[in-house]
Protein backbone atom coordinates (compact mmCIF):
# COMPACT_ATOMS: atom_id res chain seq x y z
CA UNK A 1 0.00 0.00 0.00
CA UNK A 2 1.28 3.45 -0.88
CA UNK A 3 2.23 5.57 2.06
CA UNK A 4 1.22 9.22 1.96
CA UNK A 5 2.42 12.19 3.98
CA UNK A 6 -1.05 12.53 5.45
CA UNK A 7 -0.67 9.05 6.96
CA UNK A 8 2.48 10.17 8.76
CA UNK A 9 0.80 13.23 10.26
CA UNK A 10 -2.30 11.28 11.25
CA UNK A 11 0.03 8.76 12.88
CA UNK A 12 1.81 11.55 14.77
CA UNK A 13 -1.50 12.97 15.95
CA UNK A 14 -2.98 9.64 17.06
CA UNK A 15 0.27 8.67 18.82
CA UNK A 16 0.35 12.01 20.66
CA UNK A 17 -3.28 11.55 21.69
CA UNK A 18 -2.74 8.01 22.93
CA UNK A 19 0.42 9.02 24.82
CA UNK A 20 -1.56 11.82 26.47
CA UNK A 21 -4.30 9.35 27.44
CA UNK A 22 -1.82 6.88 28.89
CA UNK A 23 0.01 9.66 30.71
CA UNK A 24 -3.28 10.77 32.24
CA UNK A 25 -4.17 7.21 33.21
CA UNK A 26 -0.81 6.26 34.69
CA UNK A 27 0.73 9.48 35.95
CA UNK A 28 -2.38 11.41 36.98
CA UNK A 29 -4.90 8.70 37.82
CA UNK A 30 -4.50 6.00 40.41
CA UNK A 31 -4.36 3.09 37.97
CA UNK A 32 -0.99 2.05 39.37
CA UNK A 33 -2.05 1.84 42.99
CA UNK A 34 -4.11 -0.85 44.65
CA UNK A 35 -7.10 -1.86 42.56
CA UNK A 36 -10.13 -3.36 44.14
CA UNK A 37 -10.27 -6.34 41.78
CA UNK A 38 -7.43 -8.46 43.18
CA UNK A 39 -7.92 -8.62 46.89
CA UNK A 40 -9.95 -10.10 49.71
CA UNK A 41 -12.83 -8.62 51.67
CA UNK A 42 -13.16 -8.33 55.41
CA UNK A 43 -15.63 -6.25 57.36
CA UNK A 44 -15.74 -4.21 60.53
CA UNK A 45 -18.54 -2.69 62.57
CA UNK A 46 -18.36 0.84 63.89
CA UNK A 47 -20.60 2.86 66.24
CA UNK A 48 -20.07 5.90 64.09
CA UNK A 49 -18.20 6.24 60.82
CA UNK A 50 -18.23 10.05 60.70
CA UNK A 51 -17.50 11.19 57.14
CA UNK A 52 -16.03 7.93 55.84
CA UNK A 53 -16.87 7.33 52.18
CA UNK A 54 -16.81 4.39 49.80
CA UNK A 55 -13.39 4.15 48.07
CA UNK A 56 -11.66 5.84 51.01
CA UNK A 57 -8.18 4.41 51.55
CA UNK A 58 -7.32 1.80 54.15
CA UNK A 59 -3.86 2.40 55.54
CA UNK A 60 -1.53 0.54 57.81
CA UNK A 61 1.49 2.44 59.11
CA UNK A 62 0.64 5.06 56.48
CA UNK A 63 0.80 2.64 53.55
CA UNK A 64 -2.36 2.23 51.46
CA UNK A 65 -3.27 -1.48 51.71
CA UNK A 66 -6.85 -1.41 50.44
CA UNK A 67 -10.02 0.55 49.90
CA UNK A 68 -13.45 0.81 51.51
CA UNK A 69 -15.80 -1.26 49.37
CA UNK A 70 -19.20 -0.65 50.89
CA UNK A 71 -20.94 0.95 53.85
CA UNK A 72 -24.34 -0.23 55.12
CA UNK A 73 -26.31 0.13 58.33
CA UNK A 74 -26.81 -3.19 60.14
CA UNK A 75 -30.56 -3.24 60.86
CA UNK A 76 -30.25 -5.63 63.82
CA UNK A 77 -27.47 -3.99 65.78
CA UNK A 78 -27.77 -0.45 64.39
CA UNK A 79 -24.07 -0.34 63.72
CA UNK A 80 -22.34 0.76 60.52
CA UNK A 81 -21.00 -2.28 58.69
CA UNK A 82 -18.01 -1.30 56.57
CA UNK A 83 -16.72 -3.76 53.99
CA UNK A 84 -13.04 -3.34 53.25
CA UNK A 85 -11.12 -4.79 50.32
CA UNK A 86 -7.49 -5.48 51.13
CA UNK A 87 -4.70 -6.17 48.66
CA UNK A 88 -3.70 -9.82 48.40
CA UNK A 89 -0.08 -8.93 49.14
CA UNK A 90 -0.90 -7.84 52.69
CA UNK A 91 -1.95 -10.23 55.46
CA UNK A 92 -3.09 -9.06 58.87
CA UNK A 93 -3.43 -10.96 62.19
CA UNK A 94 -6.93 -11.80 63.42
CA UNK A 95 -6.77 -9.33 66.31
CA UNK A 96 -6.05 -6.31 64.10
CA UNK A 97 -7.60 -3.01 65.25
CA UNK A 98 -9.45 -0.81 62.74
CA UNK A 99 -9.84 2.89 63.54
CA UNK A 100 -11.40 5.71 61.54
CA UNK A 101 -8.84 8.48 61.36
CA UNK A 102 -8.54 11.82 59.60
CA UNK A 103 -5.56 12.87 57.54
CA UNK A 104 -4.73 16.42 58.57
CA UNK A 105 -7.15 18.92 60.05
CA UNK A 106 -9.45 19.20 57.02
CA UNK A 107 -8.36 16.08 55.19
CA UNK A 108 -10.36 13.04 54.16
CA UNK A 109 -11.18 10.21 56.54
CA UNK A 110 -9.55 6.82 56.18
CA UNK A 111 -9.39 3.52 58.03
CA UNK A 112 -6.18 2.87 59.90
CA UNK A 113 -5.27 -0.77 60.62
CA UNK A 114 -3.02 -1.65 63.51
CA UNK A 115 -1.76 -5.21 63.55
CA UNK A 116 -2.11 -7.29 66.71
CA UNK A 117 -0.13 -10.29 67.92
CA UNK A 118 -2.29 -13.22 66.80
CA UNK A 119 -0.54 -15.90 64.75
CA UNK A 120 -3.60 -16.63 62.57
CA UNK A 121 -4.31 -14.19 59.74
CA UNK A 122 -7.59 -12.59 58.69
CA UNK A 123 -9.34 -14.76 56.11
CA UNK A 124 -11.71 -13.44 53.42
CA UNK A 125 -15.09 -12.62 54.97
CA UNK A 126 -13.76 -12.30 58.53
CA UNK A 127 -14.80 -9.56 60.91
CA UNK A 128 -12.30 -7.14 62.39
CA UNK A 129 -13.48 -7.29 66.01
CA UNK A 130 -11.62 -4.40 67.58
CA UNK A 131 -12.77 -1.09 66.16
CA UNK A 132 -12.53 2.54 67.10
CA UNK A 133 -15.14 4.95 65.76
CA UNK A 134 -14.64 8.32 64.18
CA UNK A 135 -14.20 11.23 66.53
CA UNK A 136 -17.31 13.41 66.51
CA UNK A 137 -16.36 16.96 67.34
CA UNK A 138 -19.64 17.79 69.09
CA UNK A 139 -19.28 14.84 71.47
CA UNK A 140 -15.69 15.79 72.21
CA UNK A 141 -16.68 19.38 73.01
CA UNK A 142 -19.58 18.09 75.13
CA UNK A 143 -17.27 15.86 77.16
CA UNK A 144 -14.81 18.71 77.59
CA UNK A 145 -17.53 21.10 78.84
CA UNK A 146 -18.91 18.40 81.19
CA UNK A 147 -15.43 17.83 82.55
CA UNK A 148 -14.91 21.55 83.08
CA UNK A 149 -18.23 21.86 84.89
CA UNK A 150 -17.45 18.94 87.17
CA UNK A 151 -14.03 20.44 87.91
CA UNK A 152 -15.64 23.80 88.81
CA UNK A 153 -18.05 22.09 91.26
CA UNK A 154 -15.25 20.16 92.91
CA UNK A 155 -13.18 23.23 93.85
CA UNK A 156 -16.09 25.11 95.43
Amino acid sequence: MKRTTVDLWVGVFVTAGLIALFALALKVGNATTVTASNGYSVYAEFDNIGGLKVRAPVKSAGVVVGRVDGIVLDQQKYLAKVTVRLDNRYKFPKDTTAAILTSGLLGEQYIGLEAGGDTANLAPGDRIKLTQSAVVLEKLIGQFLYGKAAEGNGTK
Partner: protein
Amino acid sequence: MIGMMDKALRHVGHLVVDGIWKLGTAGRFTGYVLTRSADSLRRPQLTLNEIYFSGTLSLIIIVVSGMFVGLVLGLQGYETLKRYGSADALGTLVALALVRELGPVVSALLFASRAGSAITAKIGIMKATEQLSAMEMMAVDPFARVLSPTFWGGVISMPLLAAIFSAMGIFGGYLIGVVIIGVDSGAFWSQMQANVDLRDDILNGVIKSAVFGVAVTLIALFEGYDAPPTAEGVSYAVTRTVVTSALAVLALDFILTSFMFTGV
Protein backbone atom coordinates in the same frame (compact mmCIF):
# COMPACT_ATOMS: atom_id res chain seq x y z
CA MET B 1 -51.97 47.63 16.80
CA ILE B 2 -53.69 44.27 16.44
CA GLY B 3 -52.05 43.89 13.06
CA MET B 4 -48.60 44.37 14.62
CA MET B 5 -49.26 41.88 17.42
CA ASP B 6 -50.61 39.44 14.91
CA LYS B 7 -47.44 39.80 12.88
CA ALA B 8 -45.19 39.34 15.94
CA LEU B 9 -47.09 36.22 17.00
CA ARG B 10 -46.88 34.81 13.49
CA HIS B 11 -43.14 35.48 13.53
CA VAL B 12 -42.65 33.66 16.84
CA GLY B 13 -44.76 30.75 15.65
CA HIS B 14 -42.81 30.59 12.44
CA LEU B 15 -39.51 30.52 14.34
CA VAL B 16 -40.69 27.69 16.61
CA VAL B 17 -42.09 25.57 13.79
CA ASP B 18 -38.98 26.23 11.73
CA GLY B 19 -36.70 25.21 14.60
CA ILE B 20 -38.58 21.96 15.24
CA TRP B 21 -38.65 21.23 11.52
CA LYS B 22 -34.92 21.75 11.30
CA LEU B 23 -34.37 19.47 14.29
CA GLY B 24 -36.33 16.71 12.59
CA THR B 25 -34.34 17.12 9.38
CA ALA B 26 -31.13 17.01 11.41
CA GLY B 27 -32.29 13.74 12.97
CA ARG B 28 -32.92 12.21 9.54
CA PHE B 29 -29.54 13.55 8.38
CA THR B 30 -27.86 11.87 11.39
CA GLY B 31 -29.54 8.62 10.42
CA TYR B 32 -28.17 8.88 6.87
CA VAL B 33 -24.65 9.67 8.09
CA LEU B 34 -24.66 6.68 10.47
CA THR B 35 -26.20 4.16 8.07
CA ARG B 36 -23.81 5.04 5.25
CA SER B 37 -20.68 4.88 7.42
CA ALA B 38 -19.73 1.37 6.33
CA ASP B 39 -17.70 2.83 3.48
CA SER B 40 -15.56 4.94 5.81
CA LEU B 41 -14.49 1.68 7.49
CA ARG B 42 -13.96 -0.14 4.21
CA ARG B 43 -11.87 2.73 2.84
CA PRO B 44 -9.93 3.98 5.88
CA GLN B 45 -7.95 6.42 3.73
CA LEU B 46 -11.03 8.67 3.53
CA THR B 47 -11.37 8.77 7.33
CA LEU B 48 -7.61 9.20 7.76
CA ASN B 49 -7.69 12.30 5.57
CA GLU B 50 -10.47 13.70 7.71
CA ILE B 51 -8.58 12.94 10.94
CA TYR B 52 -5.69 14.88 9.43
CA PHE B 53 -8.01 17.71 8.46
CA SER B 54 -9.80 18.11 11.80
CA GLY B 55 -7.37 16.50 14.24
CA THR B 56 -3.76 16.99 13.21
CA LEU B 57 -4.33 20.53 11.97
CA SER B 58 -5.95 21.43 15.33
CA LEU B 59 -2.96 20.13 17.30
CA ILE B 60 -1.10 23.42 17.59
CA ILE B 61 -4.03 25.48 18.87
CA ILE B 62 -4.91 22.70 21.36
CA VAL B 63 -1.35 22.32 22.65
CA VAL B 64 -0.77 26.06 23.03
CA SER B 65 -4.11 26.84 24.67
CA GLY B 66 -3.89 23.78 26.93
CA MET B 67 -0.51 24.99 28.08
CA PHE B 68 -1.78 28.48 28.85
CA VAL B 69 -4.89 27.23 30.64
CA GLY B 70 -2.64 25.04 32.80
CA LEU B 71 -0.31 27.96 33.57
CA VAL B 72 -3.24 30.15 34.63
CA LEU B 73 -4.77 27.35 36.72
CA GLY B 74 -1.44 26.78 38.46
CA LEU B 75 -1.02 30.45 39.26
CA GLN B 76 -4.60 31.13 40.38
CA GLY B 77 -4.89 27.84 42.23
CA TYR B 78 -1.70 28.48 44.12
CA GLU B 79 -2.77 31.99 45.15
CA THR B 80 -6.07 30.64 46.49
CA LEU B 81 -4.81 27.44 48.11
CA LYS B 82 -1.97 29.30 49.82
CA ARG B 83 -4.51 31.16 51.97
CA TYR B 84 -5.67 27.85 53.45
CA GLY B 85 -2.15 26.54 53.82
CA SER B 86 -2.81 23.71 51.41
CA ALA B 87 -0.65 24.58 48.42
CA ASP B 88 0.22 20.87 48.27
CA ALA B 89 -3.23 20.21 46.83
CA LEU B 90 -2.35 22.24 43.73
CA GLY B 91 -1.78 19.09 41.68
CA THR B 92 -5.22 17.75 42.59
CA LEU B 93 -6.88 21.05 41.74
CA VAL B 94 -5.18 21.42 38.36
CA ALA B 95 -5.70 17.77 37.36
CA LEU B 96 -9.34 17.50 38.43
CA ALA B 97 -10.30 20.83 36.85
CA LEU B 98 -8.66 19.86 33.57
CA VAL B 99 -9.62 16.20 33.33
CA ARG B 100 -13.23 16.66 34.40
CA GLU B 101 -14.24 19.96 32.86
CA LEU B 102 -11.78 22.24 31.15
CA GLY B 103 -10.10 19.63 28.96
CA PRO B 104 -13.24 18.31 27.27
CA VAL B 105 -15.16 21.61 27.21
CA VAL B 106 -12.47 24.07 26.13
CA SER B 107 -11.03 21.71 23.54
CA ALA B 108 -14.55 21.10 22.19
CA LEU B 109 -15.07 24.87 21.89
CA LEU B 110 -11.72 25.24 20.14
CA PHE B 111 -12.53 22.24 17.95
CA ALA B 112 -15.86 23.80 16.97
CA SER B 113 -14.26 27.08 15.96
CA ARG B 114 -11.18 25.55 14.34
CA ALA B 115 -12.45 22.36 12.68
CA GLY B 116 -16.25 22.68 12.84
CA SER B 117 -16.29 25.96 10.93
CA ALA B 118 -13.96 24.50 8.30
CA ILE B 119 -16.18 21.43 7.88
CA THR B 120 -19.29 23.60 7.42
CA ALA B 121 -17.55 25.82 4.88
CA LYS B 122 -16.25 22.80 2.98
CA ILE B 123 -19.60 21.01 2.79
CA GLY B 124 -21.48 24.26 2.13
CA ILE B 125 -19.24 25.20 -0.81
CA MET B 126 -19.29 21.64 -2.16
CA LYS B 127 -23.06 21.92 -2.17
CA ALA B 128 -23.15 25.48 -3.56
CA THR B 129 -20.83 24.55 -6.44
CA GLU B 130 -22.93 21.43 -7.04
CA GLN B 131 -20.08 19.03 -6.37
CA LEU B 132 -22.38 16.90 -4.24
CA SER B 133 -24.99 16.77 -7.02
CA ALA B 134 -22.23 15.88 -9.48
CA MET B 135 -21.26 12.95 -7.27
CA GLU B 136 -24.84 11.74 -7.23
CA MET B 137 -24.93 11.98 -11.03
CA MET B 138 -21.92 9.67 -11.13
CA ALA B 139 -23.71 7.27 -8.74
CA VAL B 140 -21.31 8.15 -5.91
CA ASP B 141 -23.15 8.58 -2.64
CA PRO B 142 -21.96 11.88 -1.11
CA PHE B 143 -22.98 10.63 2.34
CA ALA B 144 -20.72 7.61 2.08
CA ARG B 145 -17.93 9.39 0.24
CA VAL B 146 -17.76 12.77 2.06
CA LEU B 147 -20.08 13.18 5.05
CA SER B 148 -19.58 9.91 6.98
CA PRO B 149 -15.76 9.96 6.81
CA THR B 150 -15.82 13.58 8.02
CA PHE B 151 -18.10 12.56 10.87
CA TRP B 152 -15.87 9.68 11.99
CA GLY B 153 -12.76 11.80 11.58
CA GLY B 154 -14.20 14.37 14.00
CA VAL B 155 -15.45 11.76 16.46
CA ILE B 156 -12.05 10.02 16.59
CA SER B 157 -10.07 13.27 16.81
CA MET B 158 -12.01 14.93 19.59
CA PRO B 159 -11.18 12.62 22.57
CA LEU B 160 -7.53 12.56 21.52
CA LEU B 161 -7.43 16.36 21.33
CA ALA B 162 -9.09 16.64 24.76
CA ALA B 163 -6.54 14.21 26.25
CA ILE B 164 -3.66 16.21 24.74
CA PHE B 165 -5.24 19.41 26.08
CA SER B 166 -5.50 17.97 29.63
CA ALA B 167 -1.98 16.54 29.56
CA MET B 168 -0.51 19.83 28.35
CA GLY B 169 -2.52 21.72 30.97
CA ILE B 170 -1.24 19.52 33.77
CA PHE B 171 2.28 20.02 32.45
CA GLY B 172 1.65 23.79 32.45
CA GLY B 173 0.38 23.63 36.03
CA TYR B 174 3.48 21.63 36.95
CA LEU B 175 5.75 24.22 35.32
CA ILE B 176 4.19 27.13 37.24
CA GLY B 177 3.55 25.32 40.52
CA VAL B 178 6.66 23.18 40.94
CA VAL B 179 9.35 24.65 38.70
CA ILE B 180 8.66 28.37 39.16
CA ILE B 181 6.80 28.79 42.49
CA GLY B 182 8.38 25.82 44.23
CA VAL B 183 5.54 23.60 45.46
CA ASP B 184 6.94 20.24 46.53
CA SER B 185 7.14 18.03 43.45
CA GLY B 186 6.36 14.82 45.35
CA ALA B 187 3.26 16.31 47.00
CA PHE B 188 2.08 17.71 43.66
CA TRP B 189 2.08 14.31 41.93
CA SER B 190 1.13 12.09 44.86
CA GLN B 191 -1.87 14.19 45.90
CA MET B 192 -2.93 14.23 42.26
CA GLN B 193 -2.65 10.47 41.97
CA ALA B 194 -4.45 9.91 45.26
CA ASN B 195 -7.45 12.02 44.26
CA VAL B 196 -7.87 11.49 40.52
CA ASP B 197 -9.71 8.29 39.78
CA LEU B 198 -9.18 6.39 36.56
CA ARG B 199 -12.83 5.55 36.01
CA ASP B 200 -14.69 8.36 37.74
CA ASP B 201 -12.57 11.20 36.42
CA ILE B 202 -10.44 10.23 33.42
CA LEU B 203 -12.83 7.83 31.72
CA ASN B 204 -15.76 10.20 32.27
CA GLY B 205 -13.68 13.00 30.73
CA VAL B 206 -13.02 10.82 27.68
CA ILE B 207 -16.73 9.96 27.38
CA LYS B 208 -17.59 13.65 27.62
CA SER B 209 -15.16 14.60 24.89
CA ALA B 210 -16.43 11.81 22.62
CA VAL B 211 -20.00 13.06 23.08
CA PHE B 212 -18.88 16.61 22.31
CA GLY B 213 -17.06 15.32 19.24
CA VAL B 214 -20.26 13.68 17.96
CA ALA B 215 -22.32 16.81 18.67
CA VAL B 216 -19.92 19.35 17.16
CA THR B 217 -19.18 17.32 14.02
CA LEU B 218 -22.84 16.55 13.38
CA ILE B 219 -23.83 20.20 13.81
CA ALA B 220 -21.02 21.31 11.49
CA LEU B 221 -21.94 18.75 8.82
CA PHE B 222 -25.65 19.48 9.00
CA GLU B 223 -25.25 23.26 8.87
CA GLY B 224 -23.01 22.88 5.83
CA TYR B 225 -25.38 20.48 4.10
CA ASP B 226 -28.42 22.58 4.98
CA ALA B 227 -26.87 25.92 3.95
CA PRO B 228 -28.51 27.89 1.11
CA PRO B 229 -26.24 27.46 -1.91
CA THR B 230 -24.98 31.05 -1.95
CA ALA B 231 -21.89 32.78 -0.60
CA GLU B 232 -24.03 34.54 2.00
CA GLY B 233 -25.81 31.31 2.95
CA VAL B 234 -22.50 29.52 3.58
CA SER B 235 -21.17 32.41 5.66
CA TYR B 236 -24.31 32.38 7.85
CA ALA B 237 -24.04 28.61 8.15
CA VAL B 238 -20.45 28.86 9.44
CA THR B 239 -21.52 31.41 12.07
CA ARG B 240 -24.45 29.19 13.11
CA THR B 241 -22.11 26.18 13.42
CA VAL B 242 -19.86 27.96 15.90
CA VAL B 243 -22.72 29.44 17.93
CA THR B 244 -24.87 26.30 17.98
CA SER B 245 -22.04 23.93 18.80
CA ALA B 246 -20.76 26.18 21.60
CA LEU B 247 -24.25 26.21 23.14
CA ALA B 248 -24.67 22.47 22.56
CA VAL B 249 -21.33 21.69 24.18
CA LEU B 250 -22.09 23.75 27.28
CA ALA B 251 -25.61 22.35 27.65
CA LEU B 252 -24.45 18.76 27.10
CA ASP B 253 -21.67 19.34 29.60
CA PHE B 254 -24.20 20.25 32.27
CA ILE B 255 -26.33 17.18 31.50
CA LEU B 256 -23.37 14.80 31.41
CA THR B 257 -21.88 16.27 34.59
CA SER B 258 -25.12 15.87 36.49
CA PHE B 259 -25.22 12.21 35.42
CA MET B 260 -21.56 11.42 36.05
CA PHE B 261 -20.54 13.23 39.18
CA THR B 262 -23.42 12.59 41.53
CA GLY B 263 -23.10 10.23 44.44
CA VAL B 264 -19.30 10.35 44.41
